[in-house]
């Protein structure tokens, strides 16, 4: 695809404005408060193909300056300060120069904010942006740790940090390593090089998918697993740890990936699979034993003893996050006062719950709690244009995680909750070791995607009860075209939607690979459903059809 050329703004239209007959009072109101939703025409702000803005949104004085000061400036400044405090600028520069997934992805991160926060005002803008801030901070912490320990950036030498870092599959819960949090650090192998990149810059991952296929992998396996393996093919993983812990979470594809991972990582590897039939009480002992075996592996390989004290400390700390999440869901389910937009809800939840307890989550939750309390106490509806409350089910498109922002702005579809938010939903008891291990084992099994997608069809059909629980009247049914698990129940969902008379929009996608089903195609499908089935008019017609084919 040919790169579009940079165009200077077209100022010639200024001379066509009839200054004598302008409604200056309306202009002044729009300037001060921002235009009402139906007049915003956000689509007109986009530059063709690139997704860049002719100018960023004017959201009224208050919200525009909030965005400028507390999101744009704040995050740029904090990104620099985070880099400085997490191992420094030199380490960052070396990593940036060496690894494509840093340079190509993480520099345009503020545009990721822009896409997620488009059209947001007031409390929705504030609360959602805090979640993004947390993810940025943790992302920086992780890659800085990788680089500081990386032999490829340290002349082939294994430094002290290398010996004190645990690498693990991104689908292994960070909680597993709580017993060593004070002495060691655990950094997931693929979360920053792969998972987060898909949301921030959808182009990066394509290099890795293609690389994996270039060595003979067919094109149909889950592209997440393809990309995870493909980063190895391009030698683009840091070498930051003496070990690796893998898992079968979420599916067959993860098992397949570990075959390739083992070859290229070529260091001691511990496989810690979770049982598939996790509702069966008989499997719990087996699962727990695997966790304990993993702990012994870490002790043996890194020479640091297991600490029950640290496990309890960090688990209790994480329990607070879980409890707050459950409070948030109560508000989301029973009121119109929930200030987190669909993309922030989904991404933040999966990120922090998978990563485990970190200080930044608590810091940000404190900010969000204040905003949430304000909304509830003052009955502020952060999404006043909501026409439909949507529950999103199955695996989401990573390259269009902000589809919910677009859908709200264009059609008033408010994505209240999504399937992957609902996993890890257990407050782990810490009163006795036995109770803790019982709950911790279940926690480990209730991981993203697998909590609903495996272990019996009853799980995937929890959609119905969750739709009722969150008072949703519509379903966005993600259709990951390369997910065999979800493909395998496609027809049953069709039948159930019909039988239950549910408005459900199927959204096909290929997880991180935007080439299979483009964002434009996704919008077209939603537009078609909203016009032909729902017979509704768009809130912002400028968002119906636009070309963002080259956008990050």
């Amino acid at each position, binding site marked *: 695809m040919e*790169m579009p050329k*940079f165009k200077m*703004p077209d100022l010639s239209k200024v001379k066509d404005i009839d200054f004598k007959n302008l409604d200056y009072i309306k202009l002044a109101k729009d300037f001060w408060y921002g235009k009402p939703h139906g007049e915003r025409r956000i689509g007109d702000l986009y530059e063709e193909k*690139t997704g*860049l*803005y*002719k*100018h*960023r949104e004017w959201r009224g004085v208050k919200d525009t300056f909030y965005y*400028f000061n507390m999101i*744009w*400036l704040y995050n740029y400044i904090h990104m620099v300060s985070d880099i400085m405090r997490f191992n420094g600028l030199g380490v960052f520069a070396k990593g*940036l*120069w060496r690894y*494509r997934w840093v*340079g*190509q992805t993480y*520099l*345009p991160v*503020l*545009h990721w904010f*822009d896409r997620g926060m488009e059209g947001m005002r007031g409390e929705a803008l504030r609360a959602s942006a805090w979640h993004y801030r947390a993810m940025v901070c943790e992302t920086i912490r992780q890659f800085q740790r990788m680089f500081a320990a990386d032999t490829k950036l340290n002349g082939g030498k294994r430094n002290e940090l290398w010996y004190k870092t645990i690498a693990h599959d991104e689908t292994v819960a960070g909680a597993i390593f709580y017993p060593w949090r004070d002495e060691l650090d655990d950094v997931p192998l693929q979360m920053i090089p792969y998972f987060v990149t898909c949301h921030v810059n959808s182009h990066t991952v394509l290099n890795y998918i293609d690389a994996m296929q270039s*060595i003979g992998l067919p094109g149909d396996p889950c592209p997440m697993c393809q990309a995870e393996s493909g980063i*190895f*093919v*391009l*030698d683009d993983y840091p070498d930051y740890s003496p070990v690796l812990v893998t898992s079968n979470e979420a599916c067959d594809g993860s098992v397949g990936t570990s075959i390739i991972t083992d*070859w*290229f990582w*070529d260091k*001691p*590897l*511990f496989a810690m699979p979770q049982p598939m039939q996790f509702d069966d009480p008989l499997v719990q002992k087996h699962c727990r034993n695997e966790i*304990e*075996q993993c702990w*012994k*592996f870490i002790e*043996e390989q890194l020479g640091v003893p297991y600490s029950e004290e640290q496990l309890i400390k960090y688990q209790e700390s994480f329990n607070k996050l879980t409890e707050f999440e459950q409070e948030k869901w109560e508000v989301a389910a029973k009121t119109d006062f929930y200030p987190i937009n669909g993309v922030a809800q989904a991404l933040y939840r999966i990120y922090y719950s998978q990563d485990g307890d970190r200080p930044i989550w608590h810091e940000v939750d404190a900010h969000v709690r204040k905003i949430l309390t304000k909304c509830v106490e003052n009955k502020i509806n952060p999404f006043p244009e909501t026409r439909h409350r949507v529950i999103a089910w199955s695996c989401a498109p990573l390259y269009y995680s902000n589809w919910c922002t677009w859908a709200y702005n264009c059609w008033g579809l408010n994505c209240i909750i999504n399937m992957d938010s609902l996993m890890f939903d257990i407050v782990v008891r810490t009163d006795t070791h036995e109770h803790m291990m019982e709950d911790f084992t279940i926690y480990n099994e209730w991981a993203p995607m697998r909590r609903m997608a495996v272990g019996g069809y009853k799980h995937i059909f929890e959609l119905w009860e969750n739709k009722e629980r969150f008072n949703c009247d519509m379903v966005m049914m993600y259709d990951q075209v390369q997910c065999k698990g979800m493909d395998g129940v496609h027809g049953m969902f069709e039948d159930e939607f019909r039988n239950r008379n549910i408005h459900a929009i199927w959204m096909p996608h290929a997880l991180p690979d935007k080439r299979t089903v483009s964002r434009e195609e996704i919008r077209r499908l939603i537009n078609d459903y909203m016009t032909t089935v729902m017979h509704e008019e768009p809130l912002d017609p400028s968002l119906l059809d636009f070309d963002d084919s080259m956008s*990050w």
Partner: protein
Amino acid sequence: MCKFGKFLKKFLHLAVGLYALLFAVFYFDLDGKLLFYVVEPFLCKHYDDMPRKDVLKTEYSMDKFPKYEYGK
């Protein structure tokens, strides 16, 4: 005006100027445009041209690693 006052005035002028400049960068998405048209293409060319290890030559030893199994 005392020296400190002059310094303060100059500082404020600079601060306001910088703030206005940053706001202009923010409002006209100049950071995005710089990254999209200049920085990313430059870096991508660098990554494309980087010599890379042929990972298919990575050793795959059959007995390099033991069975990791631990007693209760």
